[in-house]
């Protein structure tokens, strides 16, 4: 008959019992062969587990991880450059439009000594319309179309890459 349960044996093995409990367990282990047998088996398990060695990963594991990290950061850098380039083009267009407007206002103000504000705004508005019409007519239209197509192709490529990466991440 077992006098000691598994919890007590485990705690005794871990040294988690106080002196009084330990003495009592030792006394029982001395007299009960069944308990001694169970404790010895438990101790054996503990000893065998203590000498277990870690499994080894396949050779080249480090290189694979480092390669993944390098690729990931190279791609991030590339994306950053693209974003910066797009932002720069956008800022350039904005600055050009604002510059054009200011130039228009200054030249109009130069022609008239006391220009009315409404006139200036009207003239500037007309100038913008004329500029836009010029931009999207004739030869200019094909240039603008080409630039936009090119931008769409590049953006499409990055969008495709992002989707591919997202799909790969979801699959993991």
């Amino acid at each position: 008959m077992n006098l000691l349960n598994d919890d007590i044996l485990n705690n005794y093995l871990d040294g988690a019992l106080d002196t009084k409990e330990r003495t009592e367990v030792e006394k029982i282990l001395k007299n009960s062969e069944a308990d001694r047998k169970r404790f010895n088996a438990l101790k054996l398990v503990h000893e065998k587990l203590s000498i277990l060695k870690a499994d080894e990963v396949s050779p080249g594991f480090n290189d694979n991880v480092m390669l993944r990290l390098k690729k990931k950061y190279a791609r991030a850098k590339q994306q950053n450059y693209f974003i910066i380039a797009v932002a720069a083009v956008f800022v350039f267009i904005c600055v050009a439009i604002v510059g054009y407007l200011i130039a228009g206002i200054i030249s109009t103000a130069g022609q008239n000594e006391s220009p009315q504000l409404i006139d200036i705004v009207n003239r500037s508005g007309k100038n913008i319309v004329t500029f836009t019409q010029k931009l999207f007519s004739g030869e200019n239209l094909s240039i603008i179309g080409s630039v936009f197509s090119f931008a769409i192709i590049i953006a499409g490529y990055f969008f495709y890459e992002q989707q591919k990466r997202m799909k790969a991440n979801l699959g993991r």
Partner: protein
Amino acid sequence: MKKLSDWEIIESVKKGNQSDYSIIIDRYKNKAFSLLKRMLKNELDAEEVLQDCFVKAYNSLSKFKGDAKFSTWFYRIVYNTALTKLSSKKRKTETEMSSVDDHINLKSDYDYRVSEKQDLSKFINELVNSLPEKNAAVLNLYYINEISCEEISKLMNTSLSNVKVMLHRSRSALKDYILKNNLVKELL
């Protein structure tokens, strides 16, 4: 040569020396691999998930402030990633693992040849592998990763008493198995 501490290596990596991260990989890859292999029960999955864990850890290095040991922090990533992988594979991890009251049944038909002494560690390994994921993880963390029960409870996000119960039950299950199959003499 002076052995650099984890913290020193991490600081160096944070400063931009990406290649120093391979020292960290070298230091933890095998122990983390053992943990994953025992939890996922599949070598290929374990290696793939381990790569993800190292990449994840690298990306989160800025969040590591050194409050806890790097090993505990990293093994928490490994453990949680393994759980995510298990749930994505729709395995019944929670029902199998969460309750410490579950009875552990080891396969009784394990064909162990007494004469194969050289395969003793393989035999013990296979016995541990046949434990439920969480129990195998606790044994692995305690014996192979050499982490204390307190730290295991932190990284598994469970109570210390739960960890101790799981550890005791896992050991007892192995003990019952070797007693039932009269393997004590063979293992001595």
